[in-house]
C-alpha cells in the first residue's frame, strides 16, 4: 500500500535512508543538509531507525566512520554539502578504492568564498575523479527512489562502489512535494540485507588498505573502471525493476523527455532538468523540434546514449558548474563522448552559478538563441553588469 508523504527533499531523503535500514549513520550537520541528518536523528528518537548514529566532529570523520563501519560488512549512510563534501575529499577516494558501498546524499551548495548557501554543482563536480557513482536528482520523489536504488547498485557484488546522490540546495532540499512511500515490506523485498564480499572479522583477521606494488595498484584502478562501466548496464536494469515493482521511473543514465522527431536536444542536470521540461513544452508549442535529455548519472557518464542522440540532433548544454580555465563539466564530457564520431553542433551555457534562479523562461531564451545560430561555442547566460 502506497502512502503519500508531503515533505521537503531532506526529510524525504531521511525517510528513504531509514527505510533502507542502515546499520550505521555518521554525519556532521551543514547548511543546507542539516534537516536531513536531524530527520534521521528524529527517526532514531521515535524508534524507527534502529541503527547506530555516530555524531562526529567533522565531515572527514563522518566519512572515515562510514568507511570503518562499512568495512565490517554493514550498511552505512551519510549526508553532507559543499565545504563538508570538500573536507571529505581524501576519504571519498578511500571509500571508493577500498570498494566500500557507502551511500551519501550531497546537497549541492555553492563553494565559498564569497560565502553563499544557495545551489550550484561545483562541490560534487569537483569530486568527479574519486570513483563514486554520482546521481543528480530533479524531484523529491526521485530523491526517495534513487536512495533506495543506490544501495542496491553500490552493494551489487560486481560493483561494490560508493554512491553519491546529489540534489539542489533549497530548490529541492527545503521544498515540500508529495512523495509516494511504499510499505517497508516492499522495500525489504527490493533491497535485501547487504552481502559483503569480505569484512573485518576478529576471528578471521585481514588487513585493509595495505601496501601494494605498482603493477597491483594499476589493477585496482582498472577494476574500478570496469565496475563503473558495469553500472551502465546495471542502473537501467534496476530502474526497470523499480518501475515494475513501484510504477515509477525517472530515467536510466539519462531521462528522455520528448526526444522523438527532434533537431535539437537540451541536456541539463538536477533541478534545471525539471525546469527544462516546462521550457521544452513551450518551445514545442512554438513548433521547434527540441527534446530534453536530463543527465541523471554524471559517473558513470552516459557517453554511448549521448552519442546516439547526437546522430539526429544538435546539442545544447546547460551547466550549473564551471571548471575555471576550461568550461562546464557536462559540456566537456559530452564533447569528449562525441569526438570523432559525430558531426553534431554543440553549444554550452553556464547558468545559475551562486544559486541564481534558472527559470523555464531563461531556458527557452538559451535554446532559442542556440537554434537561431547566435550562440557562441560557450556562453555565460544572464551575467549581470559585465
Amino acid at each position, binding site marked *: 500500500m502506497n502512502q503519500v508523504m508531503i515533505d521537503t527533499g531532506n526529510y524525504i531523503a531521511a525517510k528513504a535512508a531509514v527505510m533502507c535500514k542502515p546499520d550505521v549513520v555518521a554525519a556532521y550537520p551543514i547548511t543546507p543538509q542539516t534537516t536531513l541528518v536531524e530527520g534521521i536523528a528524529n527517526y532514531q528518537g521515535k524508534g524507527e531507525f534502529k541503527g547506530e548514529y555516530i555524531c562526529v566532529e567533522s565531515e572527514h570523520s563522518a566519512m572515515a566512520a562510514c568507511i570503518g563501519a562499512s568495512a565490517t560488512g554493514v550498511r552505512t549512510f551519510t549526508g553532507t554539502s559543499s565545504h563538508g563534501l570538500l573536507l571529505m575529499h581524501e576519504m571519498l577516494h578511500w571509500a571508493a578504492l*577500498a570498494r566500500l558501498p557507502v551511500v551519501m546524499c550531497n546537497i549541492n551548495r555553492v563553494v565559498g568564498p564569497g560565502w553563499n548557501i544557495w545551489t550550484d554543482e561545483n562541490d560534487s563536480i569537483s569530486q568527479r575523479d574519486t570513483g563514486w557513482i554520482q546521481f543528480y536528482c530533479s524531484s523529491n520523489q526521485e530523491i526517495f527512489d534513487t536512495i533506495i536504488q543506490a544501495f542496491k547498485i553500490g552493494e551489487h557484488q560486481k560493483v561494490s562502489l560508493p554512491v553519491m546522490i546529489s540534489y539542489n540546495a533549497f530548490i529541492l532540499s527545503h521544498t515540500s512535494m508529495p512523495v509516494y512511500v511504499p510499505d517497508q515490506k516492499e522495500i525489504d523485498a527490493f533491497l535485501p540485507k547487504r552481502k559483503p*564480499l569480505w569484512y573485518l572479522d576478529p576471528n578471521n583477521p585481514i*588487513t*585493509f588498505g*595495505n601496501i601494494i606494488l605498482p603493477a597491483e595498484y594499476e*589493477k*585496482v584502478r582498472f*577494476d574500478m573502471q570496469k565496475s563503473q562501466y558495469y553500472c551502465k548496464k546495471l542502473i537501467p536494469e534496476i530502474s526497470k525493476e523499480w518501475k515494475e515493482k513501484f510504477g515509477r521511473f525517472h530515467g536510466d543514465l539519462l531521462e528522455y523527455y520528448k526526444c522523438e522527431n527532434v533537431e535539437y536536444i537540451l541536456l541539463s542536470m538536477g533541478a534545471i532538468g525539471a525546469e527544462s521540461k516546462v521550457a521544452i513544452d513551450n518551445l514545442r508549442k512554438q513548433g521547434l523540434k527540441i527534446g530534453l535529455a536530463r543527465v541523471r548519472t554524471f559517473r558513470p557518464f552516459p557517453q554511448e546514449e549521448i552519442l546516439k542522440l547526437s546522430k539526429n540532433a544538435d546539442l545544447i548544454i546547460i551547466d550549473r558548474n564551471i571548471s575555471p580555465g576550461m568550461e562546464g563539466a557536462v559540456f566537456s564530457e559530452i564533447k569528449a563522448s562525441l569526438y570523432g564520431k559525430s558531426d553534431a553542433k554543440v553549444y554550452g551555457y553556464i547558468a545559475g552559478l551562486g544559486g541564481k534562479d534558472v527559470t523555464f523562461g531563461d531556458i527557452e531564451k538559451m535554446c532559442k538563441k542556440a537554434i537561431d545560430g547566435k550562440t557562441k561555442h560557450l556562453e555565460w547566460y544572464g551575467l549581470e553588469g559585465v
Partner: protein
Amino acid sequence: MKKYNVVTSISYPKKGAMGKTGNWRVFKPILDKEKCVKCLRCWIFCPEATIIRNKDNTVDIDYEYCKGCGICANVCKVNAIELEREGARK
C-alpha cells in the same frame, strides 16, 4: 589467495609478508637475561611481535623481523635491554 568479484588491496596475516624486515635495523636490542624480571613489558609493547615469549615467561628477540625501533629498551623498567649499533660488535 581468495578470488573476489572486484579488486582492492587486502592482506591476510602471514609471517614475514613484507620480507625479512630485520635487515632494516640500525640499532640492535641486546637482552641481558640476568637482569630480566619477566615482567613482559617488552612483549606487550613490541609493535612487530618480535619479542618471543617462552613458557617460563623469559623472552627472546626475533632478529629476523626486529626493525630495531627500541621501544622494548625504552619500556624496560630494569634496563635489561640495551641498544647497540649494528655491526659494532665484531
